[in-house]
């Protein structure tokens, strides 16, 4: 009983992760399935075929690559733009604060279908070619708000005395920002970037309207999934998940070595 009480939180966390990842587990499991028909609903038998043949569905790899490129670029740009806005909102007084906050909330409140269609109208009126750049523009647009709100949450409780101390010790504004502020709000910036990445890689409706003839991973899957997605779709999803985890593990291990070296 003592054990449970002490580790209650950890047990809860495990359950919570299980809840989050159970559908993923199912997806991973069915990537090893060997369906006879086009549907992947019933377990037929274990096979590595679809893993060996991961590139066997025409267009799937290109769709995944496109989605990753856009997600990466969009989250970087949106994070930069959003962090700047968050800094301005929390630290400075200026006219138009209310309007700015409104402008930040509105994109989140607008239903995707009308947002996507109206953005398309803009692009059509400007006679812009629909493709990579229009998808990217759209994704950056709807990610900014999420970054702003996330980073603001960190800035609101920020203890300015640390910055004041640094400046008292002779650091100018820029150095203070770089060496004191930024590291302290880094987790928030990372969280904002992660949310943007997730939003971008998962977006369907807005992308659908503004993609022209390009096909992103959600666009590819959305069409296939309802009529029977090939197991390679499951393989792709699993691969991304595993690669992302792997990168993080690598990151942790590298940190260890860096700290180890610094200690010596």
């Amino acid at each position, binding site marked *: 009983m003592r054990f449970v009480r002490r580790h209650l939180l950890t047990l809860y966390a495990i359950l919570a992760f299980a809840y989050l990842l159970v559908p993923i587990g199912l997806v991973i499991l069915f990537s090893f399935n060997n369906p006879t*028909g086009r549907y992947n609903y019933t377990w037929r038998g274990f096979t590595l075929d679809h893993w060996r043949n991961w590139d066997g569905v025409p267009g799937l790899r290109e769709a995944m690559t496109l989605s990753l490129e856009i997600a990466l670029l969009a989250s970087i740009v949106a994070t930069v733009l959003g962090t700047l806005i968050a800094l301005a909102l929390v630290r400075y007084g200026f006219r138009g604060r209310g309007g700015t906050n409104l402008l930040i909330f509105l994109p989140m409140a607008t239903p995707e279908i009308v947002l996507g269609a109206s953005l398309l109208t803009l692009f*059509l009126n400007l006679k812009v070619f*629909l493709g990579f750049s229009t998808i990217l523009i759209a994704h950056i647009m709807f990610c900014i708000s999420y970054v702003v709100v996330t980073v603001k949450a960190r800035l609101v409780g920020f203890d300015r005395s640390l910055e004041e101390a640094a400046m008292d010790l002779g650091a100018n504004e820029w150095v203070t920002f770089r060496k004191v502020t930024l590291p302290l709000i880094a987790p928030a910036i990372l969280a904002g970037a992660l949310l943007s990445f997730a939003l971008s890689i998962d977006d369907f409706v807005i992308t659908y*309207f503004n993609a022209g*003839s390009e096909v992103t991973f959600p666009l590819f899957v959305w*069409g296939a999934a309802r009529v029977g997605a090939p197991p390679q779709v499951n393989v792709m999803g699993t691969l991304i998940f595993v690669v992302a985890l792997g990168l993080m593990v690598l990151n942790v291990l590298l940190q260890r070595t860096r700290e180890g070296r610094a200690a010596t």
Partner: protein
Amino acid sequence: MNDVLTRQELLRRAALGAGLLSVPGLLAACGGSSGGGGSKKELADTLVFSNWTYYMDKDKKTKKWRTLEAFKKKFGVNVKYTEDINSNSQFFGKIQGPLSRGQSIDRDLIVLTDNERFLATMIDKGWVEKLDKDALPNIQNLVDVQKSPPFDTHRDYSLPWASGMTGIAYNAKLTKPVTSMEQLLEDKTLKGKVSVLDNISDTLGLVMLSNGDDPSRVTDDTFKSAIGRVKTASDSGQLRQITGNDYTGPLANGDLAACVAWSGDIDQLQADNANLKWGIPKAGGMIWTDNVLIPKDGDAYTASVFMNYIYDPEVAAKLYGTIHYISPVKGSREALAKIDPETAKNELFFPTEQTLSQVHLIDPTFLKNQSYNEQWQAVLGA
């Protein structure tokens, strides 16, 4: 004069297996106008074709589209094939933006279904190019019943790609055979285990037939009684859900005992659950056809040459024998019987005259009626 010369050139070169016809002189000689409306008599390098999923035959070994590769070999045209159409309304919602502004959607061929309003709307609004009939001698192979549909009476703009039937599927392990909409909508033993489709033609068509009415001639009264039955079933909880094409999951795993379903899905579903059966209701079923269109600024000539290739019974036999949807090409069943007699006999993919006499087309003016559509959307909860 020039046109005839060009076509003979084309046939000659094709026979020699030469491939691409891209001599500038030919283009100048034929004097075709550029841009929308005019027909270029030169084959393009690429044909951009947007279609639904599972409508093209994939070669398991080479991972390429067999029919498209064969076409490329014969005519030197690379077909850029994307399966990005999964809903008529969604796809139309996307392309109506550029089309309504007179802009191109960068596609040469798209496919829309005749049991929703969007196909007719495309033609009515003039957002399509005319087929190049000179390049389409095989159009004579079009089955008679498709020769003059109400939305395109002279087949100037569209050609069928594939057809399917709408009937009732049921799980033999969970229920006795379900062969009528009465059972589906009113049999209490099936309560909460049945569903209908959110497609107005598929569902209301079947209900009208069950009422003894003709879905190809809809009146306010027949509409009212049909929609009334569905609404009652939905409100009372008889219907588990009203779904799009995502009924397949619940049907396969047993959440649904019976539902309105398409013929093309069922043989694939049976691989997952052998207890599933499909049939045309006693009162009659519906038939729908996915048609190809050439959107504005699409290359009508190359697209027509492509469709002409498809409408060759030998080519059609191989294509439809693999994708398992109903072929619109006369003689394709006979051609398939020579290489794959089993599939050629399958009623689902190559229905006999007898079967075809049991399925009905929807009234096209019904589709365009905004009030009917609004009422149906209200039943769906919107």
